[in-house]
């Protein structure tokens, strides 16, 4: 089966992420569903880097990529308001994370001499995707500095885990990305719940409820689709009730 290319998926994620941030910025909280695609893009690029045997774990790449993206978003929020000028905010965040992600990728390729194809592209994509997710989360949760570590960790886990969980002999892009979708829905669900409980959300409570409802629906659909795909992929080794000779 033909795999989705990194730039195709990231192009879609970039447009989707900006659309989502603009919608949330204008008070349409349901726009968070457009942030699911950046989760897929980041998880796909972690797959693209980690499948070559980095010498570091998948977890490290997830932590590193999110550190670039989230740190960019957190620092920029100091000077550019994510609520009053969301487009300027997301442009600044994406540009800064692009520079840092690309620079790190080039250094890993040229100075450290990692021979991983397209490491600089994957580094930049992880950084920019996580930056957009962080920017969207900050729009929903508001600039509450106490919640920054929570935002960082929850995004990190959602982007590093899909490939980490799916890796092995039968790993394929479709199943990894579907698991990334499951975790994206789970993450936005938790963000919605925290926004409701914290009571410091910059959007009304009905908006938080809409995030929780949309994420829960997405989670159920994604889990069912992922479970079916897992069953379909393992049919050869699944016990059917018949010995192999009669099967």
């Amino acid at each position: 089966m033909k795999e989705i290319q990194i730039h195709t998926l990231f192009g879609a994620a970039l447009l989707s992420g900006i659309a989502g941030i603009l919608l949330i910025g204008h008070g349409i909280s349901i726009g968070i569903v457009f942030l699911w695609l950046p989760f897929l893009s980041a998880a796909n690029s972690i797959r693209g880097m980690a499948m070559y045997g980095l010498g570091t774990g998948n977890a490290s790449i997830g932590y590193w990529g999110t550190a670039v993206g989230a740190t960019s978003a957190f620092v920029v929020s100091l000077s550019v308001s994510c609520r009053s000028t969301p487009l300027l905010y997301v442009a600044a965040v994406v540009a800064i994370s692009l520079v840092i992600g690309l620079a790190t990728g080039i250094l890993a390729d040229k100075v450290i001499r990692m021979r991983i194809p397209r490491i600089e592209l994957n580094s930049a994509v992880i950084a920019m995707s996580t930056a957009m997710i962080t920017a969207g989360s900050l729009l929903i949760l508001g600039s509450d500095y106490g919640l920054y570590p929570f935002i960082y960790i929850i995004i990190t886990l959602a982007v590093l885990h899909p490939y980490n969980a799916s890796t092995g002999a039968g790993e394929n892009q479709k199943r990894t990305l579907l698991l990334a979708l499951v975790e994206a829905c789970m993450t936005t669900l938790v963000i919605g719940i925290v926004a409701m409980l914290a009571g410091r959300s910059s959007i009304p409570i009905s908006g938080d409820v809409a995030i929780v409802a949309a994420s829960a629906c997405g989670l159920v659909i994604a889990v069912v689709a992922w479970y079916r795909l897992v069953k379909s992929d393992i049919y050869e080794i699944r016990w059917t009730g018949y010995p192999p000779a009669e099967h």
Partner: protein
Amino acid sequence: MIDPVTATIMIIAGGVLVGVCVHFIPASATGAMAAATGIATGPSMLSAGAGLAGIYAAAYSIDSGLAPVIISGAVGSALMLLITILCGNIVLAFGIGTPPVSGQTASGKSTFGGTKDIITGFEQEGYRSPGTDGHGMPFQTVVSGTIGALMGGAGGALVFYAVYSMTLPAISTENAVALAGIVAAGVFLINSVLPAYVLVGKTEGMFDMKIRSMHRTFISCLVTSSIVACVIYAISWLAVSGVVA
């Protein structure tokens, strides 16, 4: 408080220290199976853990000035690492039954040559289980790890204090501490993963031949930290100047 230009230089210095410290901390994922010398996790994650412990420790002394912050960070980080090494050695010695042995030293490939622990003089050859690259953390790797953790903790604390100083004029003290903490953690994670590419998932610290590749880490972390520091400087300057969009 320190001026923004000095703070920017401190962020760069802190980032480089964080990157270099990873070379000193003994870590190996296969250490979990007692198949290699070092703490049983990836070098970058272990260094990040030690660094975060250092940042927490540094945060407690933020009002006391630069020197106490750096010392707190370094000591907090070293304490975390030493406790991890102690617990790891107890589990490996009494749970699995393997003595702490340096695999590189046992095979005569350590930085200083010979088959003895460079500090205690204990013979390493003959104690290594067949098919493994050592196990546990012998004394020389403990010393190396402590030096690395002190460097990493000091580096994290430097970044923490620098970001705190730069952002304090723009936001309240509580928010400046929170923002500086998460940004310092971010700088730590960005710089601690780069050396992992050089170390290829395993190092015994300063007694491992991989320490000779440290210049690559140094250059990479210097460039990365400089970009990050310039971004933080520019945005803090905009925020402090009141140029808020």
